[in-house]
């Protein structure tokens, strides 16, 4: 593996920017075609219905124009012919870290995954390039019938459940990137929590891209059966390269009556990764879906975690933060559709832009005419750290029922000289002071994270603040 010191030098402040030598066992040529789609499916010995779905999705992807909203300029820059759509780096999914190839194991150790697993997680999957290289779940959960697998294994071992739910929340035709993901998906998590089972400690998936010009298309499906609960945490990083990589995931959540799903993301891709992700959950009666979504890295993120409040009394919570530094555009937000009566939703979005970065909030909140007594609360705050940086909000609210109670607040603020002076007068350098202000601004998000993640995020932001102050 490359020497840490060299890697550190090459990547500046981004601490996860090193890369391993590429030791693939299977690597597809660059570019996408019907054959590539067939090859992926064949390699995985998939049932025919999946191959068919992939092919339909591929055709839809080809026909579907690029979105004409968001950052169209950067989107048009994506060179789909210069992406590797499948790369296998280990012939097996290890159930012990000993079984994971050494380079890869070292990478996950540097990222602190095995340590976190021992301390505070119920289960872990680690995906490297296209596939999961490590997987474990605590025995007691397995005994209670909890299924936590990578998606490929999920399809092999629980085809009935997968077939019943896959693509029902996000059909491939939803958007260009959900079509792309459905065509070439590989890896991701498959989770089923049986009725009444509460998984107390979070399960975690970690996604690592290592190769240059890599495309990672994980597919995640979480089904929480009646009255069950689960907290899923995902993290992601990639090496810093001068060429771009593409990450386009699809995540579907199904919360059956009375279930509770919390899905936490701390996205810290290197700044050469396009992060174009579709995330959506369906909430049945009296269930609750929470997206806790942090976007720190990537070149362009376009991601709007969504909840369809389908069952009466269901609740949606979307808390998202975005940090846009030099050369970054974080186009993030939330989407909530109130289809049923007595449903409630809270959206809290916070963005920081710095060094010319751009943070956008894009939201869609809808109350259908037949949904009575719904409540919806949206708060968007932006913090702009310097002159050249930018923040925009694109909120859309459609309220079709007069009994609805809706609130929307938005604020844009700048860091004041007096605020900095105050903190500096207490012995804190300018960078430390800025770090305190920024971490304070993110606090409503950070306090929702598992402690270990919160500490990491605070350190990460403090480091970002040190970068530019001379």
């Amino acid at each position: 593996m490359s020497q840490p010191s060299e890697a550190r030098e090459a990547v500046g402040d981004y601490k996860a920017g090193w890369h391993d030598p590429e030791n693939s066992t299977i690597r597809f040529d660059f570019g996408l075609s019907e054959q590539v789609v067939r090859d992926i499916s064949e390699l995985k010995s998939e049932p025919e219905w999946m191959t068919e779905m992939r092919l339909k999705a591929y055709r839809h992807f080809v026909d579907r124009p690029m979105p004409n909203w968001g950052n169209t300029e950067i989107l048009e820059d994506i060179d789909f012919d210069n992406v590797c759509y499948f790369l296998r780096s280990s012939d097996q999914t290890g159930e012990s870290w000993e079984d994971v190839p050494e380079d890869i194991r070292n990478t996950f150790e540097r990222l602190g995954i095995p340590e976190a697993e021992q301390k505070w997680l119920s289960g872990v999957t680690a995906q490297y390039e296209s596939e999961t290289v490590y997987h474990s779940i605590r025995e007691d959960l397995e005994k209670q019938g909890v299924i936590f697998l990578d998606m490929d294994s999920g399809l092999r071992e629980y085809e009935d459940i997968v077939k019943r739910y896959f693509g029902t929340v996000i059909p491939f035709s939803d958007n260009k990137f959900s079509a792309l993901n459905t065509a070439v998906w590989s890896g991701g998590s498959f989770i089923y929590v049986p009725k009444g089972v509460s998984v107390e400690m979070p399960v975690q998936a970690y996604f690592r891209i290592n190769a240059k010009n890599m495309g990672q298309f994980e597919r995640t499906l979480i089904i929480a059966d009646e009255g069950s609960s689960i907290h899923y945490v995902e993290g992601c990083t990639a090496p810093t390269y001068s060429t771009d990589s593409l990450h386009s995931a699809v995540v579907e959540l199904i919360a059956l009556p009375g279930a509770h799903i919390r899905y936490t993301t701390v996205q810290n891709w290197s700044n050469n990764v396009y992060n174009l992700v579709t995330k959506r959950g369906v909430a049945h009666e009296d269930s609750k879906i929470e997206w806790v979504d942090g976007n720190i890295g990537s070149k362009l993120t376009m991601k709007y975690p969504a909840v369809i409040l389908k069952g009466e009394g269901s609740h949606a919570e979307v808390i998202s933060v975005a940090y846009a530094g030099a050369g970054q555009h974080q186009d993030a937000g939330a989407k909530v559709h109130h289809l049923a009566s007595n449903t409630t939703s809270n959206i809290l979005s916070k963005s920081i832009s710095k060094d010319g970065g751009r943070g956008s909030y894009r939201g869609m909140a809808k109350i259908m005419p037949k949904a009575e007594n719904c409540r919806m609360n949206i708060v968007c705050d932006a913090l702009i750290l310097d002159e050249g940086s930018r923040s925009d909000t694109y909120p859309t609210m459609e309220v079709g029922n007069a009994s609805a109670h809706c609130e929307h607040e938005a604020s844009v603020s700048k860091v004041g000289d007096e605020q900095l002076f105050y903190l500096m007068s207490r012995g804190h350098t300018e960078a430390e002071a800025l770090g305190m202000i920024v971490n304070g601004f993110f606090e409503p998000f950070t306090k929702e994270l598992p402690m270990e993640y919160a500490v990491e995020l605070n350190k990460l932001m403090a480091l970002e603040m040190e970068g530019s102050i001379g």
Partner: protein
Amino acid sequence: MSGEKPILAISNLHVGIEGTEILKGIDITIPSGEIHAIMGRNGSGKTTAANVIMGHPSYDIEDGDVQLSGESILDLEPWERSRSGVFLSFQYPQAVPGLQVGNFLRKSVSSVRGDDAAKGAAFREDLKNAMSKLNIPSSFLSRYVNDGFSGGEKKRFEILQMMLLKPRLAVLDETDSGLDIDGIRTVAEGINEVVRGTENGALIITHYSRILEHVQPDRIHVMIGGKIVASGGPGLASLLEENGYDWLEERVAEGDVFE
């Protein structure tokens, strides 16, 4: 020891902001262990003096010097001054939403007094004592710095920080304004505790004499129009209280000296 040199020596200090001169040559010397006060009306330059001592970046130092125990601090950044022992209790403390008081206090003590001072039972004990003296409930620690604080809470929080940071020189800018009589007494006790019987010093900036009754400053300086027009013992505060600044200005114009 620092006892030899005055804790604070301001000499011939001229300060401007955006081309306008605000301080027009002031001299104040505070020997170790003493508390001085600057009194003056709004706009006389008192807050400017406080900000300049702490190193506010908006001001231009046109002439003169500010020394802490014989060393000029004008080239130091605010955090360096803080770490050298200067503390400013702000007239308008700034809110930092999301930054928890307890966390902030620990970080500040660690920055100013070193990591060891912010660790373990000694720190917790220190914190508990200071909070109980200031009548601050422990629930305060989980609130966000100055966010939604009442005027009185803000001022008490400034004094709490002062007591924990243990500065050599405490500058208190209008710390008494917005406090009721109990609050003033509490704050005064805090100041006395930090300075009396030590080699530290304090500079209290106020336009009322009320707080001075509780602190009993060693010396009072009256500032008018960016200059110290009179300096004297504690009696000067009561003279001012009785007769007002106009009277004092006239007397000074007539050549009276208040010693």
